[in-house]
């Protein structure tokens, strides 16, 4: 099975400053990988580089192969075709990820229409509308009529994030990249969104690249993790192995910190 995303020797520099150095990772179809790092670790940069979304002032060297296509140095036209079909992204801040001046229904319809055009199928208003409702249902948003006719600021943060996920799903991507998707949400909402992501990824068989600084959150949705520190991958392995028996001193400090707060909460399931 060929990998969906293969990154080899990735270097990302802004001027003289190295943001990511010598990063290599691969994601196979259906795999769920977690990218763990604090601020400045380069985790978001990596995701942006993988979808060719970095500005030209940032230099990217190395190899990134997304669904067989080399991303580094690829022209925007090639990347536009790839984006959505190969990989879709869900970002951290639901408030700014959606256009505040466009009704939600229209926003979800956009990627749906693009995908239908790409597949060469019928692009009728009905077909789009049907699919939009279908997606809204899939992300468990109640009252689809209300949602379709609302503006982003009229719905809650958790609902906005569900909309963002729906838009990502509309592309029927092979790889879903989620960059801190629950960090800006309440604890109870976060739990719901994580459960939703978990379920959707299993149902559609998508691969998942989950980026976060929150160790327990990551452990809920992925099988393998890569720990980044200052742009360098310091440890990699199965979630339980890395969290249970961290080898690198940095990983160990992160795991200890996470366990400290975890233990303060008392035994699980209390």
């Amino acid at each position: 099975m060929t990998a969906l995303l293969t990154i080899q020797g990735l270097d990302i520099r802004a001027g003289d400053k190295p943001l990511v150095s010598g990063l290599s990772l691969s994601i196979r179809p259906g795999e769920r990988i977690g990218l763990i790092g604090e601020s400045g670790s380069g985790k978001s940069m990596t995701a942006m580089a993988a979808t060719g979304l970095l500005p030209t002032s940032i230099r990217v060297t190395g190899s990134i192969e997304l669904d067989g296509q080399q991303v580094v140095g690829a022209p925007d036209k090639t990347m536009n075709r790839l984006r959505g079909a190969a990989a879709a992204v869900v970002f951290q801040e639901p408030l700014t990820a959606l256009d505040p001046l466009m009704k939600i229904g229209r926003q979800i319809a956009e990627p749906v229409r693009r995908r239908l055009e790409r597949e060469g199928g019928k692009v009728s208003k009905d077909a789009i509308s049907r699919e939009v409702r279908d997606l809204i249902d899939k992300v468990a948003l109640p009252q689809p009529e209300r949602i379709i006719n609302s503006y982003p600021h009229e719905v809650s943060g958790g609902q906005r994030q569900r909309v963002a996920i729906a838009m990502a799903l509309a592309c029927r991507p092979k790889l879903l990249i989620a960059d801190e998707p629950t960090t800006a949400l309440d604890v109870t909402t976060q739990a719901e969104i994580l459960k939703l992501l978990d379920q959707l990824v299993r149902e559609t068989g998508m691969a998942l690249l989950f980026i976060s600084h929150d160790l327990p959150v990551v452990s809920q949705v992925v099988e393998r993790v890569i720990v980044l520190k200052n742009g360098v991958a310091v440890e990699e392995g199965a979630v339980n192995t890395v969290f249970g028996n961290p080898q690198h001193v940095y990983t160990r400090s992160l795991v200890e910190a996470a366990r400290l707060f975890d233990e303060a909460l008392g035994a699980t399931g209390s």
Partner: protein
Amino acid sequence: MILDLQNVSFGYSRQQTTLNNVSLSVRPGVSVGLVGESGSGKTTLLRLMLGLVRPTSGTIRFGDQNLDPGNGTFMQRYRRSVQPVFQDPYSSLDPRQRVVDIIAEPLRSLRIPGDRTQAVADALEAVGLPLDAMRRYPHEFSGGQRQRIAIARAIVAGPQIVLADEAVSALDLSTRIRIVELFKTLSEKLTLVFVSHDLGVVAALCEEMVILERGQVVESGKTRDILASPTHPYTQRLLASIPRMPA
């Protein structure tokens, strides 16, 4: 009992009640966590406790007096005793002021006598920052260091209570743990009121907890007891939602 809130309600407008009949007591030396998600009213509660807004109904007593934001003499004394630490280390420090002036502001405005430079130096030492930080500007420091500066400002006047508003939420995990440890050390000498949505942090720092949902207190008591057996369904849901580390 230092700070006592009785049946406090607050609404920004007639239709909208942000806080409904909230009662809680802050006892000397007993750190308490105010836990709530967005819309719980915890920010408003904090602003009430800081004397920035007046309650629509109910009373807030500090010691044997009523908290009256209009009473200048009282507020001088109150501000000396109750100091805040805010969430965002990037907007809670005036970017155009040197660290020494930032930290010394309470001393100046509250007209506290004594050697100001020495007081600032003591505060810096207490938060683990070097003395040469005094002449520098906020932008020269990291998020965690800035938060230490904010904490130094909060403790320089020797307050009885420090009100921390999500004071570690904007920090990375490794920095967060260090600042939590700092708060823990400081809480030995003063009373800490810690507002947070993060139960893990509150559990690590606070002896007691008050759980807020939609402007009302749904549960309160010893942290250990609530964590072991939460009674209110909201608390139960909250605890169940927290992602846990794999065993």
